[in-house]
């Protein structure tokens, strides 16, 4: 059975700290891995990773994929209170009758205290 596991499930840090969120997966026919940020409602897209070793970066956020060890990490440097959210990892698995299937992890709830 396809599965995606995120760790830690919850993390509380102080503003300015650097955090690393983990995502490991076992998915048949892996195609790509996605990171989303969910504050209160809709998950918003952060990164899509397809190749190993190539870091994706957006401001203070960065992410990298290791397809040999089947994991990805999401780093956030100099955290701000606005980074508080649930971070979701999802892996694109096999097509379902022409539709893409995303397998989601449980999410990591990140809280940044001022």
């Amino acid at each position, binding site marked *: 059975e396809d599965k995606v596991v995120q760790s830690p499930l919850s993390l509380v840090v102080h503003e300015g700290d650097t955090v690393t969120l983990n995502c490991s997966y076992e998915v048949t026919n892996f195609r790509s891995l996605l990171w989303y940020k969910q504050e209160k409602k809709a998950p918003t897209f952060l990164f899509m990773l397809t190749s190993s070793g190539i870091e994706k970066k957006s401001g203070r956020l960065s992410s990298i994929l290791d397809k040999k060890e089947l994991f990805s990490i999401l780093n956030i440097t100099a955290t701000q209170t606005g980074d508080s959210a649930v971070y*979701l990892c999802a892996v694109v698995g096999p097509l379902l009758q022409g539709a893409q299937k995303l397998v989601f*992890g*449980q999410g990591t709830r990140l809280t940044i205290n001022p």
Partner: protein
Amino acid sequence: SQTIHQWPATLVQPVGSPLSLECTVEGTSNPNLYWYRQAAGRGLQLLFYSVGIGQISSEVPQNLSASRPQDRQFILSSKKLLLSDSGFYLCAWRGRAKNIQYFGAGTRLSVL
């Protein structure tokens, strides 16, 4: 640009009542459409997906059904709600060219 609309944002329904949640997408044609449910503190569970008008596939057996009467409209329904149907329901779309799904704002359903 593409946008996705989902309503209502919040819904409180008694057990045994019917349900209809609607999702529409603008700015794209022939998208893949998806319904997910998110239980508190958990990831997203795929409920239904559709690759075209009238084409619905279900991932898990349940008390819910879905329909796609128009290219950019996706509806989640139930004839009689159960307590276990409570949760946060999210609609998503994906264009043909990319592997990225984009989500609506969600509907928080409480069945009492």
